[in-house]
């Protein structure tokens, strides 16, 4: 990432301004928040494809709460959105841990369902006229720094601490490394596996609220493809798709790298179609370097 920042600074003088750098962090914020949940799930050896859709679903619900009664405290909207996200995560978790759906299938189903519900609910038209306090969630500044940056720091730090400092976190790595060995060591593997999906769902709910606040409307079509952004960020940051390995910090760096590329291409005026091509190449390159490193 350091190399990338230096290269970009040389190539484009506007890149290395504090304003633009803050902008990068802000853009990376939502990806990082869902990326934290994704990192947890990936480390257990699972995958959560539903995060983008769950964002849309919870964001829409939160927005409709915020639009229904302008005097309702914003907390009610947050609770509704985060609660719904958590519920989706719980369903994913039960499906994977106790019913035995493969994570890919379970969350693929959830992805499709959670995308459909808000579209049905809003009949495809965005919800406007949200309360000011709701809109302010993601569009204001505190001490001159966009609030989105704070959210990212808070959730990433929480994720980092849980994963690296708590017993729960150690056990999550244990499951991904060798689930049977973890079970035989007395780890409640099924419960823990469920919990990581619940956590991912909760964070998707939060991210959904933030994205709807940012665009000041509730809309079932938001956050299309965000699951892939989260997975890309994690993978670029060195999180293993087969589980047992990776860190929240790495994922955040991955999210930054993705955003820096996008940001600098925007500044340089590169066609967005090319951006996709480059993104894809970078993902493959990151994993390739990782594989090479492991062989040694």
């Amino acid at each position, binding site marked *: 990432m350091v190399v990338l920042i230096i290269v970009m600074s040389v190539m484009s003088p506007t890149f290395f301004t504090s304003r633009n750098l803050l902008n990068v962090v802000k853009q990376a914020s939502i990806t990082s928040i869902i990326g934290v949940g994704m990192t947890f799930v990936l480390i257990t050896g699972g995958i959560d494809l539903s995060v983008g859709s769950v964002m849309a679903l919870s964001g829409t619900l939160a927005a409709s709460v915020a639009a229904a009664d302008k005097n309702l405290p914003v907390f009610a909207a947050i609770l509704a959105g985060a609660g719904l996200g958590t519920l989706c995560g719980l369903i994913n978790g039960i499906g994977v841990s106790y019913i035995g759906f493969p994570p890919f299938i379970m969350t693929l189903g959830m992805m499709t369902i959670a995308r459909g519900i808000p579209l049905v609910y809003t009949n495809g038209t965005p919800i406007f006229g949200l309360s000011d306090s709701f809109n302010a969630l993601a569009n204001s500044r505190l001490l001159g720094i966009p609030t989105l940056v704070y959210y990212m720091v808070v959730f990433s730090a929480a994720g980092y601490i849980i994963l690296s400092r708590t017993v729960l976190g150690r056990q999550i790595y244990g499951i991904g490394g*060798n689930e049977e060995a973890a079970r035989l060591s007395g780890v409640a593997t099924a419960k823990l596996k469920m919990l990581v999906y619940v956590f991912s769902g909760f964070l998707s709910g939060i991210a959904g609220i933030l994205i709807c606040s940012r665009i000041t409307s509730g809309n079932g079509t938001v956050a299309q493809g965000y699951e892939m952004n989260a997975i890309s960020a994690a993978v670029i940051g060195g999180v293993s798709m087969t589980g047992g390995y990776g860190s929240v910090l790495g994922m955040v760096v991955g999210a930054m790298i993705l955003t820096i590329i996008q940001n600098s291409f925007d500044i340089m005026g590169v066609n967005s179609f090319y951006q996709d091509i480059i993104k894809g190449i970078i993902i493959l390159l990151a994993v390739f370097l990782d594989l090479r490193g492991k062989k040694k």
Partner: protein
Amino acid sequence: MELLLRMQNISKSFGTNQVLREVQFELRAGEVHALIGENGAGKSTLMKILMGIYSADSGRITVFGKEQTFESPSQALHAKVAMIHQELNPIMELSVAENIFMGKEERRGIFVDKKKQEEKTREYLGMLGVEIPPGTLMKELNVSEMQMVEIAKALSYGARIIIMDEPTSAITDSEVEKLFGNIRKLKEQGAGIVYISHKMNELFEISDRITVFRDGQYTVTAETKNVTPQRLIKAMVGREINEIYPEHKSHAGETLLSVKNAGREGEFKDISFELHRGEKLGIAGLMGAGRTELVMALFGARKLTGGSVEIKGEAVDIRTPRDAIRRKIALVTEDRKLYGLNLIGCVGDNIVSVVERKYSKGIFHNRRKCNGLAEDMVKRLSIKVTGIRQITGSLSGGNQQKVVLAKWLLNEPDIIIFDEPTRGIDVGAKTEIYKIIEELACEGKGIIIISSEMPELIGLSHRMIVLHEGRMTGGLDIDELTQENIMTLASGCGKGDA
């Protein structure tokens, strides 16, 4: 009589472990030649070399009078050499006919000629006197039927050398009769059968000649009618126990564990024994006798379906490994890679994985304490690592095994179960593990040991129970612990039968 196969001076090593040392084997047309020996004697390895699954380090193989080495099982099959593996590996979701013709499908243009395949399948199965509709899916068959399909597959290649690796390990007596009927039929048609088995009575019923391997070496070939079971057993186990086992210093104390009529459906039945403090109890048996299944159930990894377990005189119901851990039972599993270790995690994390909950500060992992515990264990068991952050998968087998041991010892267990404690580790590391086991017994822990290496089991145990096909065929005290006695019980004969 025509010689179908001659293997001369075959040697093979896996890493530093030499599994075959200049062995020889030959097979005539129209004979059943049994190949016997203890687990790990090299029987299956030799046959896998013939089939092209492994390649020999040295030696000559002559098949049908021509010196040749197969590169792959498919090449061997096309050359009319087939092997029926102990663990059948059919494609469950495909039909019987599709399984038989896998890789040599009858075609019409680019399409599979299903009708022709099924017709031919019916013909092959008919030769074996089996009536299974060719369109049946493999998953609907029982083990014996699958085996017949495998044999039919061998016939479909016109196989003249057929290797059967423990074909009767999973089928019933009447099915065995049917199998033997078919083996005799194949013999009459001029095929040669290599028959690998542990079961004495079967060998005498079906084989014409018997070759014995011991520790990767050829010992003897004899006409079946000229030998006795006793002679064979002696040939299989006749070696001195090396002086690498520590002296028994511990003495049996109070009863720790008492198991009564334990059973688990389809796996084992009516197993009763007691384990005392300071005692080392061996569980002997051949592969598939139910030893691992029994200890897995005692540990709560699977459920007992019958019988009762008492620990220190108190009836307990152990349903999960967590229960077992709480009751101070430890299980050092048979397969480190599958059950024992997180190989991509570091040594320290593995060592504390059982106890980290106990030492946590609230929800937080107590890193300093855990690192300290791990460091202590590394020292106590002299595990060779660059540091506790080294990735476990990069350690040698012996050191990996010590990591597993360390993880359990931290929980200060009363009962420690060792399932194949020295599999895949070198002699030096083995000796160290033996010493540790003896020390644990001296500390008053109850030890259960499963091992397929007979000398190891004898060298380590105070007492032994022997299982045969999921049943306890007897118990042996320290002065009765001879390989002959164990083999006799393990192959299903009662005490004093042989």
